[in-house]
């Protein structure tokens, strides 16, 4: 099974493809630098997205992500990863355990909601802001520019101002399906622009 290197890898080098199999896990265990770099880059993004829906502070997200990697790499060293082709779900399950422990610890500390009292998410520290530099921004701008003004305002209210989605939909006279489809179409347009900008690796290869 092939896995696409995340956007971060686009900086200064072409796309790389890796297969989560026995050889990959063996290289990871042996401490191969490029494999470790790929592993961390690939799963950093997924863990970031997963934790962002649950934790408010970027610091908390970073801590839990680091703890997840530490445990997975320790399990690797101890030979506890028995199904290399299931490496992704394994990382997810470790992340779930780390998250549960975080909740329990916060609960013990007397905080009913583990996120109460913490800083709001630090959007400036978002990993995607680091990896999607100017070119990606231009492509997103291109997509946004082609949207009707109402749809731009809708996205602004939902994602930037983080207003209640039901209220926003009511204000704009649309339903939740409309919002979902709007995001889907914007994403498809962005995907098309994104892959058209990559010369040496056609999208078909990335998705094959």
């Amino acid at each position, binding site marked *: 099974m092939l*896995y696409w290197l995340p956007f971060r890898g686009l900086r200064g080098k072409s796309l790389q493809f890796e297969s989560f199999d026995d050889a990959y896990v063996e290289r990871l265990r042996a401490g191969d630098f490029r494999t470790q770099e790929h592993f961390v880059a690939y799963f950093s993004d997924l863990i970031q997205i997963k934790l962002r829906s649950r934790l408010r502070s970027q610091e908390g997200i970073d801590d839990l992500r680091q703890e997840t990697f530490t445990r997975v790499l320790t399990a690797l060293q101890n030979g506890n990863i028995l199904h290399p082709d299931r490496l992704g779900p394994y990382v997810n399950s470790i992340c779930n355990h780390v998250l549960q422990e975080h909740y329990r610890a916060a609960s013990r500390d007397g905080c009913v909601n583990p996120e109460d009292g913490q800083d709001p998410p630090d959007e400036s520290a978002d990993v995607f802001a680091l990896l999607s530099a100017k070119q990606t921004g231009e492509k997103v701008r291109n997509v946004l520019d082609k949207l009707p003004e109402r749809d731009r305002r809708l996205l602004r209210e939902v994602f930037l101002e983080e207003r209640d989605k039901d209220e926003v939909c009511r204000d704009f006279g649309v339903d939740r399906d409309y919002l979902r489809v709007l*995001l889907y179409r914007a994403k498809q347009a962005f995907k098309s622009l994104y892959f058209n900008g990559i010369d040496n690796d056609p999208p078909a290869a990335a998705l094959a």
Partner: protein
Amino acid sequence: MDHAEVVRQKLTEQYLLHELDSQQRDEFEEHFFDCRVCALDLRLASTFIEQSKSLLAEPTDTTAVAVRIPVPVETAGRFAWLRPALAVPALAFLLIIVAYQNLVTYPRLEQALNRPQILPWASLNTRTRGGSSPVITVPRGRSFLLFVNIPPDNLYARYIADLYNPAGKLEWSLTFPAASAQDQWPVQVPGADREAGTYTLAVRGVTATGESKEVGRTSLELQIQK
């Protein structure tokens, strides 16, 4: 979780819009950690959202457009009343009105506001289904109090109460924080020219992640005192 199902139901978008319940969310996460196509799709959508935030935060051209709006050229006919002969008496008349409001009208209103008063009220239980609606009788244009009972639930970070008039139109929304120690919220409904009938109060709980769910709905019968 089947990949075709993920695509068909647009689960990537639902996930990023926080529309999935916790079980669906866990299942989708299990899936995208294993599925390279969905992982790529999710990254693209997430990148788009994050980039959009900074771009949508930029000021639009509306300010520039507003500046470019040409100022109408003054014509003698339309602005003739600005001549001192007319403008001075008009200004004096306006000053008299302002003085009367400041010296008479506003002090009276302030005095009325500072005086203690008993307001009509009703107690509403949001999680009680069926039964008769409480009746509240108010003079036209007067405000009244609602004691809204919401059983505490640690799931939610805040509540939003929506009041719908008898025609089903939203009158107002009120957001207030969830507090584990408080289950009754006094809400003062401002005076307005309301029609008599059945008003509905819907209460939604909003989690820390922004997920919203209706936690209760109740109604009250508003009667206008003649």
